[in-house]
Structures are given as structure tokens and as C-alpha cells.
């Protein structure tokens, strides 16, 4: 029992503490790739500390929902961290499957998009409308990519998928796997608000999605929202790392195994972060109404992947 609690706290702590660092490393890498020096990788921690120290300003037009949302958003991310196979293939919420995880993230999107509308500014509404459109259109791809994986592991349980696929050494060379990986990668970019779908570094109203939606937030509310967004990115990258490359994910909850799992995860995340940084540097942001085409492309990849499972069996 105490062991379970310790593991659960460890899971959440790794995701919560690692998320700002991941964002910081990503920013540093991007800065170096374009020849800037950029801030230190731990700059996001400083930003969070600064924001937590400030008094939040809340619009007079808002209802209770606006003030509750940062906490609910954080709560969905913590629960998602408990449900995801982060350090081992036995997450604290052992029953959790990918569908639960996706709907938990949708719960956060639901609250955040409503909060965007609550202040009554056109920016918030615009951001909410776009964010919810991207989330809705990404959903079929997620499900089909999951289907491709679960068909091979014969379970939708996250831990089960990791353990089931870890026994196949030539996994990454399989077309099913590659197609599903690329489909899920595009969805990750969309859901986490990265280039080419959204630009996290902009405040230009024509292009922004996430930043427009959270424009009214300030102080500790903004800190929680930003922190939760970083956790979302970390969780998506972790899913990509551990579901599609399940090597080295321990299936036991011993302290040594967990440390090893953390090291392996760090290595995988670093590789994925480099990939994202290179991609973001090499690509421009897509026009908003080209984004659905990108998502349709990722859907086609996922559909091909599932069809390949049926044809190759």
C-alpha cells in the first residue's frame, strides 16, 4: 500500500518536475539550431516561480469556471500521469487504457476552452474555437493508431501494450508500427500545440491558438495552465517513446528498475525532443485552414496502418 503511494507520487513528481525542463531543453535546442544563445534550459522553472509569486487578475465578466479551470486542468494532467506508463509498464492506475487517457486530456480541453470563452473577449473565443477544432479532428487518428497497437498486443491497456510489444525485437521495422508512429507523432504536434499546427512562441492573433485561449490568465493561474501544457507535451512524448519503442521499460516496481526506467525514458525523450526541435526549426507554421489537411494526412496514415494489420496477419 505504502509502496503504491510512493510509486504514484514518484510518477507524478517525475512528470511534473520534468515537464518544465523538457520545454526548456526544447527552447534551448531550437535557439542553438538557429544560432542564438537562448535562455538556460531551466528558464521555465524561473518563469513558473515568478508567476506563482504574482497576484492573478481575474476578469469581472467571468464565472466560477474561469477560476476553477487551472486547478482542474492540473488535476487532469496529474491523473493522466498516474495512468500513463512513465517509469514502468505498471502505472499507478493499473487499469488505465489509452481511451481513458485521451478522454482525460479531452476533459482538460473542455474546461480550458470554456475558460477561454468565459472572459468574453474575442481573443479567447477565437483561441477556444481553434483549439477545440484541432482536438476534435485529431481524435480519430489517435483512436486508429491505438487500434493498430492494440490489435498487435491484444489489449488496449497501456501497460499491456508496452509489455506485449516489448517482446518483439524487430518492431520498429514493421510497416504497421511505422505508420502508426508517424500518425501519432503528427497528433502529438497538434495536441501539444507545436509547429506546424500552433506556434508556442507567438502572440500574433492571426496565428495563435493556445496563447489566445489563455490570454486572460495571469499569476498563479497562468503558471498552472502553462505547467499543465508542459506536462501534456511530456506525456505525449512519453507515450510515443514507451508505446512505440517499448524497450527498456521495466515491468517491475523495484527501486533499481525504476531508476533504470527513468534513465531510459530520459534518453528516449531527449531523442524525441531533438526531433521536435529540428522539425520546428526546419518548418514554418501552417496556415490555420491547412491544419485540417495535415490531420487528415495523419488520419490516412493511421487508417493505412490498421488496414495493414488486417492484410498482413
Amino acid at each position, binding site marked *: 500500500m505504502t509502496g503504491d503511494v510512493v510509486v504514484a507520487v514518484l510518477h507524478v513528481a517525475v512528470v511534473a518536475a520534468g515537464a518544465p525542463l523538457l520545454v526548456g531543453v526544447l527552447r534551448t535546442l531550437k535557439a542553438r539550431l538557429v544560432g542564438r544563445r537562448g535562455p538556460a534550459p531551466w528558464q521555465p522553472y524561473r518563469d513558473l516561480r515568478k508567476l506563482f509569486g504574482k497576484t492573478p487578475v*481575474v476578469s*469581472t465578466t467571468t464565472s466560477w469556471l474561469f477560476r476553477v479551470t487551472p*486547478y482542474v486542468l492540473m488535476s487532469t494532467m*496529474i491523473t493522466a500521469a498516474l495512468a500513463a506508463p512513465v517509469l514502468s509498464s505498471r502505472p499507478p492506475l493499473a487499469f488505465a487504457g489509452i481511451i481513458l487517457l485521451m478522454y482525460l486530456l479531452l476533459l482538460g480541453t473542455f474546461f480550458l476552452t470554456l475558460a477561454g470563452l468565459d*472572459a468574453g473577449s474575442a481573443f479567447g473565443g477565437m483561441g477556444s474555437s481553434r483549439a477545440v*477544432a484541432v482536438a476534435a479532428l485529431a481524435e480519430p487518428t489517435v483512436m486508429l493508431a491505438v487500434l493498430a497497437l492494440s490489435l498487435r498486443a491484444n489489449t488496449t491497456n497501456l501497460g499491456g501494450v508496452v509489455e506485449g510489444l516489448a517482446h518483439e525485437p524487430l518492431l520498429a521495422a514493421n510497416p504497421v508500427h511505422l505508420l502508426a508512429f508517424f500518425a501519432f507523432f503528427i497528433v502529438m504536434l497538434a495536441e501539444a500545440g507545436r509547429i506546424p499546427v500552433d506556434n508556442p512562441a507567438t502572440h500574433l492573433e492571426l496565428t495563435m491558438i493556445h496563447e489566445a485561449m489563455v490570454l486572460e490568465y495571469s499569476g498563479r493561474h497562468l503558471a498552472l495552465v502553462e505547467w499543465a501544457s508542459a506536462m501534456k507535451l511530456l506525456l505525449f512524448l512519453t507515450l510515443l517513446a514507451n508505446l512505440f519503442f517499448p524497450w527498456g521499460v521495466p515491468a517491475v516496481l523495484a527501486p533499481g528498475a525504476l531508476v533504470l526506467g527513468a534513465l531510459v525514458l530520459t534518453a528516449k525523450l531527449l531523442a524525441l525532443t531533438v526531433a521536435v526541435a529540428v522539425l520546428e526549426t526546419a518548418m514554418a507554421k501552417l496556415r490555420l485552414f491547412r491544419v485540417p489537411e495535415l490531420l487528415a494526412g495523419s*488520419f490516412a496514415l493511421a487508417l493505412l496502418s490498421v488496414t495493414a494489420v488486417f492484410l498482413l496477419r
Partner: protein
Amino acid sequence: MTRGVYVLATLLGAAGAAVGITGMLGPPWSVEVGWVVPLGGLALAVDPLTGLFVALVGATSVPASIYAVGYAGGERRGSLAYLGFIAAMLLVPLANNVMTFAIAWELMSLASYVLVVRTRSDESAHAGWVYAVMTHAGLACLLSAMLLLSAWTGSGRFTDWAAAAPALGATARAVAWTLLVIGFLAKAGAMPLHVWLPLAHPAAPSHVSALMSGVMIKLGLYGVLRASFEWLGAGPLWWGPTLLLVGAVAAVGGVLYALVDRDLKRLLAYSSIENVGIIVIGIGAALTFRNAAADPLALLALTAALYHVVNHAAFKSLLFMAAGSVVHATGTRDLEALGGLARRMPWTAAAFFLGSGAIAALPPLNGFVSEWLTFQALLQNVQLPRPGLNLVFTLAIAALALTGGLAVACFVKAYGIGFLALPRSAAAESAHEAPPSMRAGMLLAAAACVALGLGASVVVQPLLAVAGALIPAPAPIRIGAGLTLQVSDGFASVSTAAVAVALAGALAVPLAALTLAGARRRPRRYETWGCGRLLQTARMEYTATAFANPFTRVFDFFYRPVRRLQIDAHPESRFFVSRIEYANPTRFIVDDWLYGPVERALRTAARWAVAMQSGSPNAYLGYVLAVLLLLLVLA
């Protein structure tokens, strides 16, 4: 006096729920009274499936009737029809022969028709007309199939059909199934037979809309279940995939129309079409699995479908009641004229918020459980070794996932535009909270949404038993530790109760941490930031139309939007604009491609038929003679 009618309706609903639950859990029984009606007499029978639907009608009538006390108040028109409507809906699943069924079904349609046209406006007259046409077209299909089956099997009693059906030829069964399914799906509102639904549901008073959407359309699905799983025996393989595709089209189409609608109640009506689609996907999956001899999976899919039937009754009646409170308080259903209601009517807003979360399938509420079960049933289609079927299932999974995402967007729009930010009209500005009886009705339905979500491990047992009565198979769902639903021996598992605990705990942690760190300073209240403009008005808010615009653009092949922009300039200079008129209506491809041509063909046929109507009695007598001679020759 009219309040007494609604109290009576509440009692009738409670009695119905009690009868239904005993029927669901107890032994089956039946009564036949020969002399009441001709052609077979009155025949009633109860088995678990009947019990479930009777209980559902009864249980949904209770909050709706309590709500009606405050909503309809002393309004006399329609109160008796309301009572008759509930009684007829309770009778439909009980009917055990063609005659009883036809009477109950028609009574239900007539009572609801009376309620739809109650307000005597052009809108409700048109809605009533379309409803009457569609419901009778459906009845024609049902009656012809039922009479054919009676003739072929030699009995009008439903329970006799199951025994006699396997002896029928393949064509006979295909004809009967197609007619029955078309008739029942017309009542359920599946696309493209849905045209009456978005007209009739908003036109009816809200407690009636709650019942029409919550349970009446489910009786159509009840009929689909009976026809597909019982009356006609084991069918050919194409029945299931057909229903899967029909369900997928209804789910995606329904939610797409809901997404762009700005009438709050019509939005909910379209969302009912979406949910009927989700249920039909479940039924179609169950039928495919059953006819492919994968019985445990069929049982899982059917349980998921029944769970969604129950869930939809809970959250859709809740949403219609909350929408009714909004209409009651503001007199408008137009989202563009609402807003700011979360602060003016907190109870109603909370009810609508909870209903939105439930219908968007957000954990840990009830909609999540049934959609999750449906997904798990669909995902296991790999056990069927037929690539063609697998592909249909894959499409259904994608459709269901897209529906889930779009439903979130749709209800973010409904709640965010309708209830949040500043009021967009004087009516919304002066809105008031609903009276206690209306709040009590909503509270009951909201409690049901929460209980059906958190208590999934309890609710799923009787539903498995009901589904098991149609498909005998070992139960595919077991209850594990921590109230976990375990599907198909480790294929998947979930526990909404544990998720709720985790969410609540995770909500408390940051709050407690911030309080301990002394970082919870009181927020400063200030106006919304707006690029330095002088004052904020509701005209600066995002509108429902603008919110849905990305979807209109992405799915323009479906909506076929027409953009009309007219700018009137001042006569002196074209740079002084005096008026801008902008309209961006969407069109309905079903109307363009199906009902339009049918209507034109009917009109042409009518013009031809006019030639026969000369007004001369001699000519008419001649027609009679000619037909008589023709019949004699044919005989």
C-alpha cells in the same frame, strides 16, 4: 387542476419504473384479453428487455413531470395529451401482438403530435406536419412488415414469430427486416430519416422534448433490437454491417449539424440523432458479432448499446430541461441572444454544464462509460477473420472517435456561448433562476448522470442480464478490485470511481500546496483585456456562428455553406457604410439529394393525377367499373 395531472404523471412514471424493474429482474409474464380490441385482442408480455425500456420510460417521466409542474404551470392545453403520451410509451414495449402494438404506437405518435403543435405557431405547425408525415410513413413500413410476418407465420403474436421465422425464406426475412428497421429507425431519428426530429423536438414544450428525445426515440431502437435479435431469428451477415454504417452516418452527421446550429433546443435535437447513431453502432456491432458466431463480443456490444440508451435518457432529458429553463427565463432559444446565464441562473447553468460533460463522454460521468464500452466492443473486431468486415468496423471506430471529439466541441459551444461571458440581449440580461420544481427535476436527472457514471460496476450487471436474454453467452465483463470493469479477460479495464477519486485528489493537491506555501493571494478583479478599447460590450464576444466556423470550413463538402454579403453604402460616399448584411446558412444534403427529388416527384405525380379528377360523377362511376372489371379479370 393541471398541476394534479403532472403529479399523476409523476406517479404513473414511478409505477412504470417499478413494473419495469421487476420485469427486468423477475420472471417473464404475459396477459391476453381477447375482447378489448379486435384482431387478436390486447396482448401484453414482459421479459427483461421490455422491463428495461418500461423502467426507462417510467424513470425518465418522473423528473420530467416534476419539472413540468413549474414549467407548464397552469397551462391546460396539452396536459392530458402529456399523460396519454407517457401511458402510450409505457405500453409500446409491453405490446405482444400486432394490434396492441399498432394502437400503442399510434397513440404515442398522436399524443406527441398534439404536444408538438400545442403552441399554435407557424413553426410548430410545420414541425407537426413533417412529424405526422414521417411518423406515418414509418408506421406504414412497420405495419406492412408486421402484417406480412403475421400472414407468413400464421400468428399476430410477437412471441410466436421467433419460433416460426427460421423456416421463412431468405428473401422474406430480408424484406421483413428491411421494412421493420426502416420503420423503427424513422422513429429513432437515424439519418436520413431524421428530418422530423430537429423540427419537432424544439417545437414541443421542454418537458415533452425531454421525453421525446430521452425515451420516445429509444422505443424505435427497442423495435430494432426485437426485429434483429428475436423476431426474425439469426439473420444473414449483411444486417450488422448495414446498421454499423447507418449508425456511423447518423453519429457523425448528427453531431456535425448540432455543431453549427444556433438554436439551443435544435442543437440538442441534432445531438440526439448523434447519440442514436452511437447506439445503432453498438447494435450493429452486436448483430455482426452474433451473426458471425462471436457471441461474447455480441453480448459486450449489446450491453454497451443498452448502457448508452440509459445514459442518453439521463443526460439528454437533463439538457432539455436546462434548455427549457433558459427558454422559460429569457423567451429565446437563439444562442446568439444568450450569454451570461451562469451568473444569473446558477442552478440551470450547473445542470447544463454537468449534462454537457456527460454527453461529451468526459470521465468520470456516465457518457464515458458507455462510449468506452462501445469502443472496446468495436476494437475487438480483429477476432473476426474477414477483412471486409474489419474495414467496416475500422470506419465505425473512426466515426465514433470523430463524433466524440466533435461532441466536445459542440457542447463547449452550447455552454460557452449560451451561459458564459456577457449577456447578448436584454432578455438574457434580465434572466431569472427557474422555480423550485424545475430545479428539482433537473437535480434528479443530474444525480442520475453522476450515479450512472460512478456506479458503472453496479449498473452494468442488470444490463448484461438484459442483453444476455437476447444473446445467451458467457458474460464478457467482470467486476474486479476497486470497482473495475474488466472487459474480455484483460483486453481492457476501467474504473470510473477510481478515476473520480484520483481527479479529486489531484484537484486537492495543488490547492493545498499553494495554500501551504502562502501563495493563494486573493485575485484582483478587473475588466477583460481588450487592446485598449474603452469599454467591453457583448458585441465584442465571439458568437456561436464564429465558434463553429472552423468546422464549417473543414466540412464544407457536407454543409455546403452559402455566403451572402451585402454592404449598403451611404449615397454620398461608398466609404461610409450604412448597413452590412451577412448570412452564412448551411444547406442540408439530405434535403437536396433525397427529400427534394422525392417531393418534386410527388408533386409531378399529383399533377398527373389531377387530370383524373374531372368533377363528373359519371367519370368516377366509370373508374369504379373499370377497376372492378380489372379485378375480376385478374381474379
